[in-house]
């Protein structure tokens, strides 16, 4: 149960950090007399910092209540199926996909991304079926590319492909 308290404490620090960061940027805004463009950001940064402090205080003062509190139930059990490796792999794939979208082109990158992402996300008790995955990836990439290009006039980057 101590992990939960630590987690709430971390959240509080993150909240306060975000508030302070925003405050720092707000201070650098050009000011003039009266209500100016920095007025609302100043109010907001004060509110953000205050809420961060409140979160920290609530962790301190009612540690008991915090341990009983379950953040939003829904599939959020840190001990259960937490799988950081897959998250990192997924994020790396998405970053690579977006970064290469323009130079390599939408059709090729999409097919490649889908194929790799299917493999990464395949449940542990499933077999990876390379042929089916590659087929779905290719067909999806082609359909999406042609559909948007021809029917919706959206010029997705074609990249290396000549069409």
């Amino acid at each position, binding site marked *: 149960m101590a992990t939960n308290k630590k987690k709430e404490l971390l959240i509080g620090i993150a909240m306060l950090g975000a508030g302070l960061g925003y405050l720092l940027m707000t201070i650098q805004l050009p000011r003039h007399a009266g209500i100016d463009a920095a007025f609302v*950001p100043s109010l*907001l940064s004060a509110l953000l910092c205050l809420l961060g402090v409140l979160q920290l205080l609530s962790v301190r003062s009612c540690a008991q209540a915090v341990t009983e509190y379950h953040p939003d139930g829904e599939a959020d059990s840190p001990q259960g199926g937490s799988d950081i490796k897959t998250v990192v792999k997924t994020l790396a794939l998405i970053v690579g*996909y977006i970064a290469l979208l323009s130079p390599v082109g939408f059709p090729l990158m999409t097919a490649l991304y889908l194929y790799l992402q299917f493999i990464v*996300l395949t*449940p542990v008790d499933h077999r990876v079926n390379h042929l089916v995955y590659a087929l779905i990836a290719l067909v999806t990439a082609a359909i999406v590319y042609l559909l948007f290009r021809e029917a919706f006039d959206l010029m997705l980057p074609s990249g290396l492909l000549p069409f």
Partner: protein
Amino acid sequence: MLELLQQGFGAVFSLNILLLMVIGVAVGIVFGAVPGLSATMAVALCLPLTFTMGPQAGLSLLVALFIGATSGGLISAILLKIPGTPSSIATVFDGGPLMEQGHGVKALGIGIVFSFLGTLFSIAALMFIAPQLAKVALRFGPHEYFAIAVFSLTLIATLSAGSMVKGLFAGALGFAVSTVGIAPVEAIRRFTFDVAELNGGFAMLTVMIGMFAVAEIIKVAESGRHAHQGKAQSVSMKNIKGFGFSLKEFREQLPNAGRSGLIGLGIGILPGIGAGTSNLVAYIISKKRAKHPETYGKGNIGGVVASETANNAGIGGAMLPLMTLGIPGDTVTAILLGGFLIHGIQPGPLLFISQGPLVYTIFAALIVSTVLMLFMEFYGLRLFIKLLDVPKHILLPIILVLCVVGAFGLSSRLFDVWSILVFGLLGYVFVKAGMPAAPFIIGFILGPMAETNLRRGLMLSDGNFVAFLGNPIAATFLGLALAFVLWQVYSALRPKKSAINEILRT
């Protein structure tokens, strides 16, 4: 009004719009039915498709998606005992047991028919209330709009599930993110770090796609590989007359449905909270008022009726502030707001004057989609059940590709695609921290509205704050906002949990 409505139906019954709506309802039902996909996602992902359509066709498609997805949640709620969307959580309580007892078709039929009735009821209410409210709202100036925006912001931040501090923080953070870009009134650049793409701030759609769709994919990456996907049982449609329940059962449920419809409508109108809350509230109240409350949770059709009538009645409710004030009632209508804006239409009281025919086309589209939903969902049930079995590890990557296409389609720049990834990460952090995403979205949308109107109001009154309090409507809303925050703080300090929190946590 009838003449305009006739025109609206005329527009909707053109072949291509009707076809779009059939597709929209079907896709919507799928998004509603598959757990993890939501109405918000359906509308956000299909919005780019409407760029090249006219406003009538585009908005009809989006409305069809909205209705399909809101009601589609009941399919997985009853067959899989997993709510397809947060708006059908309470449907599981009695729909699940009914399915186990072999009354699956009855539960589905009742759910679909009362979804239909709930939606129709709320559309009727929308059609009668909206023009009147728009007339009143025409007289609103910056003072009133500022007060309403502040009131809506406090409402959503404090009513959202979980801790109030986190809800408020999420709302304020959304507001803070919306201040990126060129400031209103004064036009100086704020927080842009000399990045030209940031001058216009973050596009609303990239924020929504990131927070709701990309975050979901990251979430599945974390838990999906070890989770077991439930297998949907099919139901036999043989020897089924009508919708699988008797007229007597239907009549018995009418008072319950009426009450739940009103609850759904009322909660739907309140900005920021919608069907996700109203189905639970309606369920609890229906249980309390029932003759045999002990049968609830064990397969009483009343539970399905309450939940499904209420969540669908939220549709008209959420459309009401959107169309009359330009304030979204929930996250789906927040994207619809984006849809309106992309077609060059500013929702608000003027909409009813300048775009009368379009308004009634939307009403007509709502009604037609509702009828389509009734028949497609019940008679196409077996098809939708098959789609429930599509594995998540195939489905979600494809959805990510569609997110990328949607973000890119906004203004053909990769900056927006990077934005969805950033907001996707933020959304994932929110999930991990138990922070609700809805206040963030509402803060992001209503923030600029509050700030712009504050600045304009102050200009009108020569920098005098008192003008906001001298205006009766503005003062009332500001007072309500203050009272609401104080009441929430008071109930948070009391050891006993407040009734609303109890409801939200059930």
